[in-house]
């Protein structure tokens, strides 16, 4: 009797309270002895977690690294399907959030944090990837607005200016390769849909969208995408831009040995490169991506991730607080940005002089962070992901990537990729529109 009364009361509270759970209740919840499991691949994240444990002495966090990227999601989806063994908090990249939302695997954090206040903490294009229809599905951790890192010395030697538009870039690619037959102005990898989608994002392509629960908008060959394909196809066919797969041993070697004079990368790229091409320190510099329309600087995003709470957690409040605290509190957020070199997502960190004014010796003392903060402001906000992003990313290299690798017709390859994705979406029970 008492219990049902209690249930009715809480139900009423839930129904009529437009505001999130009461702060006092939350506080009490966070004082209880709790153990949370957190699946993440971020190196040295134990430093930030230790700060959290100091702030909440009764909460212990167990860190588990089940692998990065595909290996991580495989295991996560498997434990979710099994119905047991799932962590409380997990690392998720932006593009995979909708695929976990559709399986009802994520906890809506809007019951803990007011949505409007939450959104204001981030640039629009980041907030719109985690807050969907007034539900907060994850707390952003880092991002990857795209720019270009290039070998200053190699371009100078070839007498080539840093290209500001894609047209200039194409001319520069031809001129550069003619002078350096063993080197290429850049490399377009056939195995990396992440970079490709980032370039589409910049070019105004919007390949994915979702209307309601069961209708998807898919067009991997929309005018923006065809424009990008038509740009690269001749450069690759002529052999003035290389098409080596990236993140392989051969590619690392290529970056270090000057096989590629530039890398179209994201904000996490500059620090990554420092570790890969140590010998070439000082001869690199960063610039924005070349533009499609001169005078209208626009970028795209490649990579970045979030911390999300799984719906199966028994410690909802503590898990939500862990995800929020790590990524929104000043100290841990700045630590991620300056020690792990994750490119920040909070407006406050993006404006923090300790981060923005850092000089990078590898780039000849250039204020690389400052440049990428400016680039971050030029990323369009209306880009959406689909709930079948895994399939899109595994199929891309097999259809589109094969054509890129064999120097074939990229437009036709985009259509083949699109057809495979549409076919899969229909098998999964979706209605598909263009």
């Amino acid at each position, binding site marked *: 009797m008492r219990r049902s009364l209690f249930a009715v009361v809480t139900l009423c509270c839930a129904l009529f309270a437009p505001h999130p759970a009461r702060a006092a209740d939350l506080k009490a919840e966070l004082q209880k002895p709790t153990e949370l499991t957190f699946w993440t691949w971020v190196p040295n994240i134990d430093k930030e977690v230790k700060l959290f444990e100091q702030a909440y002495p009764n909460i212990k966090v167990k860190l588990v690294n089940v692998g990065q990227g595909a290996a991580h999601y495989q295991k996560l989806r*498997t434990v979710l399907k099994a119905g047991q063994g799932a962590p409380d908090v997990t690392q998720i990249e932006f593009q995979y959030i909708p695929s976990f939302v*559709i399986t009802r695997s994520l906890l809506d954090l809007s019951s803990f944090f007011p949505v409007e206040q939450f959104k204001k903490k981030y640039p629009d294009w980041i907030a719109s990837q985690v807050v969907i229809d007034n539900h907060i599905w994850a707390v952003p951790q880092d991002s990857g607005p795209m720019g270009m890192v290039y070998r200053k010395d190699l371009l100078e030697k070839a007498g080539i200016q840093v290209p500001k538009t894609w047209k200039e870039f194409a001319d520069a690619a031809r001129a550069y390769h003619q002078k350096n037959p063993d080197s290429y102005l850049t490399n377009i990898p056939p*195995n990396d849909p992440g970079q490709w989608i980032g370039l589409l994002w910049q070019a105004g392509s919007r390949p994915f969208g979702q209307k309601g629960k069961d209708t998807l908008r898919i067009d991997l060959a929309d005018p923006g995408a065809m424009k990008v394909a038509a740009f690269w196809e001749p450069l690759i066919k002529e052999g003035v831009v290389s*098409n080596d*797969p990236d993140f392989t041993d*051969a590619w690392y070697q*290529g970056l270090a040995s000057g096989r590629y004079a530039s890398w179209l990368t994201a904000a996490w790229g500059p620090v990554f490169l420092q570790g890969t091409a140590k010998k070439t320190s000082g001869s690199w510099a960063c610039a924005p991506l070349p533009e499609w329309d001169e005078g209208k600087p626009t970028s795209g995003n490649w990579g970045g991730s979030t911390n999300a709470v799984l719906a199966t957690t028994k410690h909802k409040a503590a898990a939500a607080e862990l995800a929020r605290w790590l990524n929104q509190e000043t100290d841990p957020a700045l630590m991620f940005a300056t020690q792990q070199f994750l490119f920040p997502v909070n407006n406050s960190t993006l404006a923090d002089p300790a981060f923005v004014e850092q000089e990078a010796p590898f780039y000849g003392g250039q204020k690389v962070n400052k440049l990428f903060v400016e680039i971050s402001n030029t990323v369009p906000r209306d880009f959406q992901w689909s709930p079948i992003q895994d399939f899109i990313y595994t199929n891309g290299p*097999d259809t589109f*990537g094969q054509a890129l*690798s064999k120097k074939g017709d990229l437009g036709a390859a985009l259509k083949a990729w699109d057809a495979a994705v549409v076919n899969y979406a229909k098998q999964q029970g979706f209605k598909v529109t263009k």
Partner: protein
Amino acid sequence: MDTASMPVGRVSGRDSQVSHRRHQTLAGVLFILPALLLFALLLVGPLLYALTLSLFSQRLVGDTIFTGLDNYLSALQDPEFGEGLLRMLLFLVVQVPIMLGLALVFALLLDSGRLLLPRLIRLGVFIPYAVPSVVAALMWGFLYGRQFGLLGQLGRALGLPLPNFLGSDLILASIGNVVTWTYTGYNMVILYAALQTVPGELYEAAAIDGAGPVRLALKIKMPLLRPALLLCTVFSVIGSFQLFNEPAILRAAAPDAITSAYTPNLYIYRLAFQDQRLNYAAALSFLLGLVVFVLSYVVTWAARRRRT
């Protein structure tokens, strides 16, 4: 019925015999019961489970529905699966004869007793089999690399333009080389062991008839090796279609040449664990099993027919 109508006194002897036989049968059943239980639990059970899985379809929108043979029908039209099967057939036709030929030559040479340091050679050929296939694939991946590998460095040092062993034109041959390197020794041991069982009188008789070592190998040893060779062939057919480790590991070095559906097993693995399409993956597994079964049967049947 019979026993009931028989006189009591005469029955006892026969009866005890029957009960003895029954005891034996019972004991026999009891003896095989543990193995049978494990067989049912670990082999038949999962197979039945996979079969059930393959008849349903779980979707992201809407529930899991019974789709009967739909998964099998779409599998038959699946170009990725078909290409993988054809690729493995090509692999089988080229790589298996090379590997078994090498194994045969080594076995015959060892058996002839005309080799220097036979033990060392036997061990040397066999040792790659003791190297885990994951390690072997990793090692060869490093050897093959054009930018970073040993072959690339050699080519540069000698000024030779080496082809890209990790490119899409040569990758199947490169994988075949790794598999040959690994399994030649294993097959050699089987063949060599079979040669040891050939009775010595046959050799004596052949020698008296004036047969030299080459003739001995071709006319006496080869025909007697037939059952062992057949065994090796069937194993190799099964092994070829189940190719997984080598391409899965080499993918890290050659992601553009080895697609995620390069071999049927790679494809099934991707479907089950990356795409989370367990139902479809189960259907493909059954089809793959069927193909392997049929091919193994054809090989055995062809070998038997030739003998008669």
